[in-house]
């Protein structure tokens, strides 16, 4: 416990002098040694990039006495610019987490999945075990019967490289269909370009920003936060549309507390005002877009008054924001946000958002969106893989090849939706039903199956049915403790990974390299992949002898080298950010069927979707239930960081936000523990109540990533509630494949006991360096 002034005074009524004598035995003794600080030793630095979220900030790792002691932002890196968020800072605590997976584990024969009974194994035995079962599944069902899930930058080995060599199209990432799929698909079919991992919002030059459900400040995407703060300091105006008074809302000039799920109506009303009042950028729209006439007809009756009745916002405010947007155009922007799988109609909402941007004439124009360019980088010259899975990524639109080579099957989720990238949640069903064909094995790299994919009971049932389930991870997450074989990966501070190529205003390549040797018997992902490939008889696809050789070959091909990258960490190239940069070279950035920005999408019409976005009302909440909204804490990433003592000291549990008014009705007290129960009867918690003015009466809010149920995570276990556990329902977005998660409703069940857990500081003490 912190001894602060107030506590000190209550502890002692005696004089300060008396305490001085009693405070330490023989108080006035000779000076004792104060422990040496790490920075007083010899400090060496290693360049790498961060893995504590997906943003991939360049980092400078400081090593002293053979241990990583401090991580700073790389000064010359376009992502971090010398700064880091709390998660980036706290990477050290993950590296030295004593709860880490330490050696390969094989589930004890005869035990059930989920029982958590394991025996230690050598790497050789564990990989032999996996290879034998994979080959058996391949013989019986074909290579497509193995699914591959991946999350994190090491996942390229397990959702791209190895499945492609192996011949399974069923590789997927939660980063797509439970995150960015709608914004990527909509952008692809509006602008002919994806959004990419780093949203190409031209913060540096913008004057007017409208955020819709976009929690900058609670999402600490480093560069974005830096540029957002700088824009506001420069005087940019900010409008925040959110049912909850987010951190961003606290910085806003206007907060629009919209009724959840009605955003598309608001966007259509803005389109209406921009067109009806002739406020759109005529020259830009004429030159770069198609479909204005159809759009104008479509939104004729979508007036602010119409939207007001739907969104619970005043018509005057709606109109005023549209006019202000136009007044600042093209230096006015509605950023796409990131997690966009909300209601199942999300691609159309994102289309509406992009159309507003296009009418402002801001795409490819300073102050709106810049045109991100991928850096030039060559692949390793391995023999051609039999097929190309379409796992996508945050930058997701890439998609694999639609053509299925002779002898191979198409993705198991094909036909359920329009987009080319695989939807992770749609690969669960084939594990259960065997339709369209059986999936009998799962290789799961870093994907938290019980904290990212909706309908956890279904996922558990599917895992029970598999012939093989392998988890590759750093920590004993609950889903890991269900696997047949657990392979302990070392952390990002102990390994090389493949190069990352960041599409950006100034495109760049980053190197990940180890700062220290792997602890215990953990191994890097590339090593695990390569050894497994060899055991699977795929050695011709991994002709490189070491990762250094692999990386050096790729870098030599672009005139650099591993040696140079180790010294620099980041290699920055030249970009082509604005339309005039493209036009100078007679190039067209809009890779749509028409070669222009498609306000009206003929392709959508041809596939039976609305060619112009329409408002679809969200699923209504049953009586007595609140819509469950969720978001982030700035100090945590996904469900990945709740065992990190530095971060857990800053945020040890999540709370359920509920309005003061509703709390009063329910008789709730601030800080009391309650259960949350969804309309399917799933109960989760206990979780503390946070009564607040900062949320509407029709919804409650949880920070994502808490409510861990693995006892192996001694810090994370039992703290807070998992939003994912309550998300048993999702509405599939038929265009993007996204799983609309905000269709879950909860009621508050009061009088839960406070969980009896040790204090974080007590648990953290043994984790100090």
């Amino acid at each position, binding site marked *: 416990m*912190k*001894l*602060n*002034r107030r506590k*000190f*005074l209550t502890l002692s009524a005696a004089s*300060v002098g008396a*305490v*001085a004598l009693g*405070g*330490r035995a023989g*108080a*006035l003794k000779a*000076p004792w040694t*104060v*422990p040496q*600080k790490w*920075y007083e030793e010899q400090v060496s630095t290693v360049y790498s990039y961060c893995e504590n979220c997906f943003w991939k900030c360049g980092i400078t790792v400081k090593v002293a006495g053979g241990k990583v*002691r*401090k*991580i700073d932002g790389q000064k010359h890196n376009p992502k971090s610019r*010398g*700064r*880091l*968020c*709390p*998660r980036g*800072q*706290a990477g050290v605590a993950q590296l030295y987490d004593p709860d880490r997976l330490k050696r390969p584990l094989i589930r004890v024969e005869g035990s059930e999945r989920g029982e958590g009974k394991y025996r230690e194994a050598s790497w050789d035995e564990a990989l032999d075990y996996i290879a034998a079962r994979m080959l058996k599944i391949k013989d019986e069902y074909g290579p497509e019967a193995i699914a591959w899930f991946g999350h994190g930058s090491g996942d390229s080995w397990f959702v791209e490289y190895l499945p492609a060599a192996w011949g399974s199209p069923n590789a997927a990432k939660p980063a797509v269909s439970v995150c960015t799929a709608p914004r990527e698909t909509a952008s692809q079919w509006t602008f002919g370009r994806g959004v990419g991992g780093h949203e190409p919002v031209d913060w540096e030059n913008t004057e007017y920003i409208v955020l819709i459900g976009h929690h900058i*400040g*609670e999402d*600490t995407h480093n560069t974005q*936060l*830096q540029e957002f*703060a700088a824009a*506001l*300091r420069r005087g940019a105006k900010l409008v925040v549309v959110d049912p909850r*008074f987010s*951190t961003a*809302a*606290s*910085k806003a000039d206007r*907060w629009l*507390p919209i009724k959840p799920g009605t955003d598309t109506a608001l966007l259509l009303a803005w389109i209406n005002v921009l067109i009806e009042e002739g406020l759109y950028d005529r020259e830009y729209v004429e030159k770069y877009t198609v479909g204005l006439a159809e759009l104008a007809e479509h939104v004729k009756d979508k007036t602010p008054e119409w939207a007001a009745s739907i969104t619970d916002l005043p018509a005057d405010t709606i109109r005023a924001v549209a006019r202000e947007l136009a007044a600042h155009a093209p230096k006015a922007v509605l950023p796409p946000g990131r997690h966009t799988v909300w209601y199942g109609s999300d691609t159309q909402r994102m289309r509406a958002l992009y159309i507003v941007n296009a009418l402002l004439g801001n795409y490819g124009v300073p102050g709106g969106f810049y045109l991100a360019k991928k850096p030039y980088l060559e692949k390793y010259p391995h023999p051609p893989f039999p097929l190309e899975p379409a796992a996508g990524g945050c930058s997701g639109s890439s998609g694999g090849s639609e053509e299925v080579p002779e002898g191979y099957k198409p993705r198991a989720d094909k036909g359920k939706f329009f987009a080319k990238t695989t939807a992770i949640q749609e690969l669960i069903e084939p594990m259960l039903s065997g339709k369209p064909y059986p999936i009998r094995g799962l290789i799961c790299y870093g994907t938290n199956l019980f904290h990212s994919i909706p309908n956890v009971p279904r996922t558990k049932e599917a895992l029970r049915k598999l012939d093989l389930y392998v988890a590759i991870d750093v920590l004993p997450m609950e889903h890991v403790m269900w696997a047949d074989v657990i392979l302990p990966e070392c952390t990002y501070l102990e390994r090389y990974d493949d190069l990352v190529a960041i599409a950006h205003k100034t495109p760049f390549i980053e190197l990940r390299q180890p700062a220290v040797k792997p602890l215990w018997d953990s191994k890097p992902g590339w090593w695990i992949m390569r050894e497994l490939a060899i055991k699977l008889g795929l050695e011709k696809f991994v002709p490189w002898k070491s990762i250094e050789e692999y990386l050096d070959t790729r870098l030599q091909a672009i005139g650099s080298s591993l040696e140079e990258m180790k010294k620099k960490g980041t290699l920055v190239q030249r970009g082509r950010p604005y339309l005039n940069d493209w036009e100078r070279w007679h190039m067209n950035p809009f890779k749509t069927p028409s070669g222009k920005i498609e306000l009206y999408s003929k392709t959508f019409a041809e596939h039976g979707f609305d060619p112009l976005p329409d408002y679809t009302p969200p699923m209504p909440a049953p009586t007595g239930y609140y819509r469950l909204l969720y978001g982030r804490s*700035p*100090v945590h990433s996904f469900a990945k960081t709740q065992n990190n003592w*530095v971060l857990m*000291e*800053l*945020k040890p549990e999540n709370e359920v936000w509920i*309005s003061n008014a509703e709390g009063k009705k329910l008789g709730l007290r*601030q800080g009391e523990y309650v259960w949350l129960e969804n309309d399917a009867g799933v109960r989760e918690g206990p979780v503390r109540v946070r009564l607040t*003015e*900062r949320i*509407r009466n029709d919804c409650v809010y949880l920070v994502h990533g808490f409510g861990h149920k693995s006892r192996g995570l001694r810090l994370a276990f039992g703290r807070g509630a998992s939003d994912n556990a309550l998300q048993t329902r999702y509405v599939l977005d038929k265009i993007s494949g996204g799983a609309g998660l905000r269709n879950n409703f909860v009621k508050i069940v009061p009088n839960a006991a406070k969980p009896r857990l040790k204090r974080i*500081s*007590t648990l*953290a*003490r043994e984790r*100090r360096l």
Partner: protein
Amino acid sequence: MARYAMVIDLESCVGCSACAAACVLENEVPPGHNRLWIRQRELGVFPELTVEYRPEQCLHCENPPCVPACPTGASYKNEDGLVLVKYERCIACGACVAACPYDARFMNPAGYVDKCTFCEHRIADGLDPACVETCPTGCRVFGDLDDPTSAVREALAKAGRIDVLRPEMGTEPKLFYLNTPSNRGLDEAEEVQQ
């Protein structure tokens, strides 16, 4: 000779705690203690709201009450205006902890009183304190008040309103807050410590 000070622009601060995490690692702050923390206050009534994120730490007062409270001379103000502790001389009596009106000091389990030093060891190398260097929003500015060209002087010169914590104590803090949202005249709500 300098007079080091810090300016925090609350308009920019989002309470992300990057500063707090950086501080813990840079200074090996033991679990359960903080040299630096963030207070969060919710102000107003739906929908007229604001939230104040306020980082706090030692204010390196011009008139630090902790220094005269120290019976051994372990607590002192150095020639650059930093309020510091000579750990070897500290007898862990806690008098300074009690004297500080800002709860900025704590008893390090290693056996001495500990607190923010403005990362004295980094300043000596010409670097900003760890909290300033890492802050993604750039809401923290550090520098020498005696240097008219310093970043803090520039920030203070441009500022509309400048606040310090508990000015009535006469401590003359050298940690300044700009754009305090509570100055907008909204009711104060209960305080939540992050």
